């Protein structure tokens, strides 16, 4: 590390003349010739430590700044911190170095790097804006739904309609409120028609089956009672959805802190994601059965189940930033349902009766619930594959960086 050669001359040499006034009593400085030491010439950076006049002077410095040297990543960092403590080139000459940089290099080389325990970054807690009570707020739609159903059961006629309308509005607001906060909070930004398609799909789940089956036999005869059981079950299933999402987020955060590589992280998140989706589907099916029994309506497992899976996965992807994919999938499912209805209605036109054939044969085989099932099912499957790729990435779960 002995660096010879023309020393780096500070530009201030010309300003600092030979007769700079120094206090006569200051005996701590050993360099009597002041700033002229650095002019030209070759000087050894370091004498061997076996010299007799003094012990290793760097050792005292090493002890004083041990902490700093162990944490440093670079000799330049040691040099910067030494200068902040008041070291300069003349003081470095006391340690037999040409300047602070070479002294810092020696310190860096002599102190072994401390392997400090890895600590998670401060502030890597919940992302900002997460409402603390979202777990409790998830129960709000459940409560409102139960109240609405009870209200409609207990009233008759006009008050019944009014109660149903008010209850539906309240439930809608409750669902919005619970989704606004918590782990299913979507980032602000253009949504690309997600809302429109969601409303269409829910509307189809409400009355589409009835319209389709009556259109197949000769045309809608009049207003029919809407099939409220699937929609009710879906609303009640918001709470488990929120809890599943919260569980996923918490596990992902823990996994981020604990995993050493991206592949390891993905491997830890993937089974949990698939498991949570499966558990939620089971919960939805159970709720469908419950609602069907309570409201005395046939429970459309296939249609409502696939719709539920589609909505859940679309929401997951939207929350993590993939809005285009989710809105595209919702749009495709909605368009498929609309096409099915349109073909049935268009089959009445003269010469277009062949349009009715596919839908009619499918409905005859499996019932009217096959249409939403076939529309939403493949879309949900695609979204599931996409979610397995996207949500297992570390960058999807990174908390937003604090502004430096």
């Amino acid at each position: 590390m002995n660096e010879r050669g023309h020393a780096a001359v500070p530009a201030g040499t010309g300003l600092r003349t030979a007769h700079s006034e120094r206090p006569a009593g200051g005996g701590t400085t050993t360099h009597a010739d002041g700033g002229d030491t650095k002019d030209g010439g070759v000087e050894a950076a370091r004498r061997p430590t076996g010299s007799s006049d003094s012990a290793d002077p760097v050792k005292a410095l090493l002890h004083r700044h041990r902490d700093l040297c162990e944490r440093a990543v670079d000799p330049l960092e040691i040099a910067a911190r030494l200068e902040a403590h008041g070291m300069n080139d003349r003081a470095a000459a006391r340690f037999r170095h040409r300047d602070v940089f070479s002294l810092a290099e020696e310190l860096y080389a002599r102190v072994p790097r401390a392997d400090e325990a890895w600590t998670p970054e401060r502030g890597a807690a919940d992302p900002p804006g997460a409402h603390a009570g979202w777990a409790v707020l998830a129960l709000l739609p459940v409560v409102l739904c139960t109240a609405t159903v009870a209200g409609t059961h207990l009233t008759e006629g006009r008050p019944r309609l009014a109660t149903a309308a008010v209850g539906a509005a309240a439930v809608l607001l409750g669902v919005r409120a619970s989704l606004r906060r918590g782990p299913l909070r979507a980032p602000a930004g253009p949504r690309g028609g997600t809302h429109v398609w969601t409303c269409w799909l829910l509307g189809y789940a409400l009355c589409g089956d009835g319209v389709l089956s009556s259109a197949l036999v000769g045309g809608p005869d009049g207003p029919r009672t809407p099939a409220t059981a699937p929609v009710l079950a879906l609303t009640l299933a918001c709470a488990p959805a929120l809890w599943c999402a919260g569980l996923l987020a918490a596990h992902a955060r823990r996994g981020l802190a604990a995993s050493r590589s991206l592949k390891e992280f993905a491997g830890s998140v993937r089974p949990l994601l698939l498991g949570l989706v499966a558990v939620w589907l089971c919960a939805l099916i159970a709720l469908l059965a419950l609602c069907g029994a309570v409201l005395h309506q046939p429970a459309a497992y296939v249609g409502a189940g696939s719709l539920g899976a589609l909505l859940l996965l679309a929401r997951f992807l939207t929350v993590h930033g993939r809005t285009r994919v989710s809105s595209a999938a919702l749009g495709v499912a909605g368009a498929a349902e609309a096409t099915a209805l349109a073909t049935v209605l268009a089959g009445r036109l003269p010469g277009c009766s062949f349009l009715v054939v596919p839908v009619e044969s499918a409905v005859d085989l499996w019932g009217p619930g096959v249409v939403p099932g076939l529309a939403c099912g493949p879309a949900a499957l695609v979204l599931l594959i996409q979610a397995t790729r996207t949500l297992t990435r570390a960058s999807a779960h990174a908390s937003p960086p604090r502004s430096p």
Partner: protein
Amino acid sequence: MRIGLLTEGGYPYVSGEAGLWCDHLVRGLGQHEFDVYALSRSERQEDEGWTPLPPQVTRVRTAPLWTAVDDGVVHGRRTRRRFAEAYGELVTAVCAGGPLAWPGPLNRAPAEEGTDEAIEADRFGNALHALAELARDEGGLVGALRSEAAVRTLERACRAPGALRAAGVARVPDLLTVTAHLERLLRPLSLDWYGADGLGSVDLCHAAAGGPAALPGLLARRLSGIPLLVTEYGAHLRAHYLEGAGNTPVRALLASFHGRLTAEVYRQAACVTAGDAHIRRWQERCGTDRAGIRTVHPGVTASRTDDGTESGECADHADPYTVVGVGLTEAAGDLTPLPHAFEEIRRSEPRARLRIVGAPAGGPDSVCSGRHGEHGDGGEDGEDAAEARTAAGAVVVLPGVVEGFPFDLVEAMYRGRATVSTDVGAVAEVVGDAGLVVPPCDHRALAEACVALLRDPGRRARLGAAARVRALELFTVERNVAAFHDIYLEIISRFPVRRPVADEAGEPLPFGVPAEAHLPWRWTQQLSPPLLGGPRWAVGTPSGATRPVWAAAAGQTPALRGTGEATR
């Protein structure tokens, strides 16, 4: 000459740091045009507004550094591969570590082309420019820098053999943090400043600081050949090291990035100026070519401290037994010399008193135990009160370590006071032989110096006069502005930007773009000469040229046209 001033979190924002010298520069060079390209650091800074701008600042373009909106461009497969290559090169250069300066801190001859050292030195710069070109061609760089592919590339580079040891133990959150920081630092690459109507139209880029502020200048140099001048009044790399926080892998990688960026900026700059020798040493260590460094001291306004009286009178008004301590607001860490030293001073000179200007970082009690000296109420007073207190003392002491340039010391020198200061940073260069300089952390030497000055009024007067002369010679704003003007002309003459101006026939017009073509008025307007400052007899419009008499022989009368046009 049109100069593009590049700042980051500085001028023209009100709360910008180091905005004062930019303001002096812009106002002092009224014959040039300035375009200011400013990056803001936080939303609050943008909301606070700008300082009032002089008319020679023709344009100000700002961009936020604290946010970046993804422009929604989705990359195709080829673009993704191009991005992966460029970003991979960048992070490989960052993770590889190694000394900053090829050819090393002693400034040996630059590496020959084609050797390993030269390739390493070019790798970072080429990767930066590849990313910039990608941003210009395709856009969507912000989204790509935040994507999983970027994190995966970083992970691969960290685990590669030959990477930094600290990078090899990086975990997933560290990788995410580093990716986020890199995305923030590379935001200037996505700006639209580099077109022909932006930075492509200036003659010279002047970066007000090193590091990220000079990044647009780097790109302008590569794209349009605009020469770059970098001015540093604080070593950027040193500031980065001092504020480093976080885990070791994060700090190591970011320090490596900043170091490489700084070295690349210094390599590409036509000229680098340092505020003092202290910063100059850092610049040389990071690989600047020594021939391209100039030292330009910052200018301290003399008008504020110039009270028009002789320095001798000032000294007479001062209390001969008062010692004034300055520079304590910025003193980092070591405040202990002053109370110990003052105890020693009191022991030798019981009548001595200590006054403190400005609130010390740890409160007034951290400096004085309260028993000995009365310390002046170092509150948040205005400048006048601080000046009055500085003027009230006979000896001005600068204890402790001051980060950056010691402005308080220069102001004391303007006032003609004898100074005693500790030898840290740029202090010895500023004071020279016009004051006493003591070794740091030595309170006995400090006390002895103060006592010696307190007892000898003649020496005080001599040192004070020498200090004032020195300050007026070296640290005035005019000198600073004149130095920059000379540097501008030198750079423009050595690295002219070729913009051929064509006349009506389409031929290149010689001297079409001279260096100082900007006149302070619009010369195409019909202004009468007295308004232009010309002679009074040229009041009327100039008459057309008369034909010579011999041309009249051809049968035409010499036409004396009364009305002429002021042709150019």
